[in-house]
C-alpha cells in the first residue's frame, strides 16, 4: 500500500528507529510503495531503504496513507490538499512533553479526517479526558501491516 511516514528528521529517536527498522524490513519482500517525509534535514542515523521526501511533496501524495506520529506533523498533513488517508500514530502525549496550545491539540485530535491510533492503552484515558475521543485502534509496536489493517 502506498504510504508516507512523517518524521521530524533522520536523527535517532525511539520512533525513527522503530519506523526505519519497519520500513527496511518491509520493503525487502514487498512491492508496497513506502517512503519517508522529514520536516528537518539531518544525516540519517541508519541506512534507509526507501525514498525520503520534503514535506512539500505531500501535496501531491494522492491515493495513499500518510502516517504522522506527532500532533504538529498531523496538523501539517491535515492541511495538505491530497486525497490520502491521514493517520496519527500518536507515539507520545506531545502536549505533556513540550508546550502546546490546547486549541491546536484539541482540533487535531478531534478532526474526523484523521484516524487516531495510539501506541499505548495508557494514552486512552488522557485523550478521552482532553477531547472525549476514543482511538480508532491501539498498535503497541509500530507495524505497517497492523496500521493498514486497522483502517
Amino acid at each position, binding site marked *: 500500500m502506498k504510504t508516507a511516514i512523517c518524521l521530524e528528521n533522520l536523527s535517532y529517536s525511539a520512533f525513527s528507529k522503530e519506523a526505519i527498522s519497519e520500513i527496511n524490513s518491509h520493503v525487502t519482500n514487498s512491492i508496497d510503495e513506502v517512503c519517508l517525509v522529514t520536516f528537518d534535514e539531518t544525516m540519517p542515523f541508519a541506512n534507509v531503504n526507501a525514498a525520503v521526501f520534503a514535506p512539500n511533496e505531500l501535496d501531491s501524495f494522492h491515493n495513499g496513507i500518510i502516517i504522522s506520529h506527532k500532533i504538529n506533523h498531523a496538523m501539517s498533513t491535515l492541511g495538505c490538499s491530497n486525497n490520502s488517508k491521514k493517520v496519527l500514530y500518536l507515539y507520545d502525549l506531545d502536549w505533556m*512533553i513540550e508546550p502546546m496550545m490546547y486549541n491546536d491539540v484539541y482540533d487535531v485530535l478531534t478532526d474526523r479526517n484523521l484516524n487516531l491510533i495510539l501506541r499505548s492503552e495508557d494514552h486512552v484515558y488522557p485523550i478521552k*479526558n482532553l477531547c472525549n475521543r476514543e482511538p480508532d485502534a491501539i498498535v503497541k509496536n509500530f507495524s505497517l501491516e497492523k496500521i493498514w489493517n486497522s483502517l
Partner: protein
Amino acid sequence: MKILCYRSSSEFHFESIISCLSNINSPKFQIGYLSGEINLKSISDFSPDVIIHNIQGSEKFPVKENIISININETKGKNSFSFKDKSSSNFLKPFVTLKQVHVDDAEIEKFKSDVVYIGSPTIFKDLLSFLTSEKNDIRFKFFTHVPHNINGYCGMCDSKEYFKFYNNAKASLVRENDIQRIMDIVISDGNPILFTGSNYDECITLIKDAVNKNIRYSIDGYKREDIIKNDTSFDRAYQIFRTVGLNKLAEEIIKAKNLHWNTK
C-alpha cells in the same frame, strides 16, 4: 483630546486598562498606542494631551512638553497609581477584564469539563491524586504554560478563553487567596470551590456533589452583579481619569462599558 498609551513592558493589568480606551465611541477623543523605544518625533507628531504609561520608577513621562502624565507604575506621584500598595490613595483594587463567555454549540465540547483549574495543580497534593485517578472518573482539565506529565494537563490556553472554561465546567478549583481568579470565576458564572491549602477532604466532597448532583456554590463577598457594576477594568480606568481631573473622558469610559457589556 489626544491620549497616548505607552507600553514600556507587557503587563496584564495595564493592558487591560488601556484596552478600555479603544472602546470609546466619541470622535472627541483620539487614542494612540506606542511601545518599545520612545520616539520623540512620532510623539510630537501625534501631540498628545495625555500620556498613560507604565515605565518603571518614572513619575513623569520623559518628554519636555506640558503633557499630563499618568503613571501606572507603583510610583508615589500625584498622578501615579498602584495595583499593589493598598495604603496608597491611588490604589487600584483588583478587577476583572470583561471577556466573551458565549460558546457556539459546535465548540462547546472543547470547553466542557467536570473540574477546571488554571495553573499548576501540584499544590493540591492528595486532592490531585483524587482528580487524576481513572477510577474516580472525574474529567479534570488544567492549563499552564509549563508542560506537566499528569492526567488532566491540556496544554496552554489563551487568557481570553479562561471564562469559557469556567463557564462550562461543573466546578472550578481556586486557591483561597487568589482574588483575581475568584473574581474571574464568579463573573463568568462558574462554580468556585475554594482550596485553603489543607481542606482536601472537604474539596473532594464539594467536587463530588458538584459533578454528580450539579450543586452550585457561592463565595461570601463576591457577587457577579456587584463585580460587573464596580470592579471591571472600565471602572478602574474611570477611577484613574476621574482622579487626574479628566471627567469627560471618565464618563466616556463608563458609556463604553455599558455598550461593551450590553453587546457581549
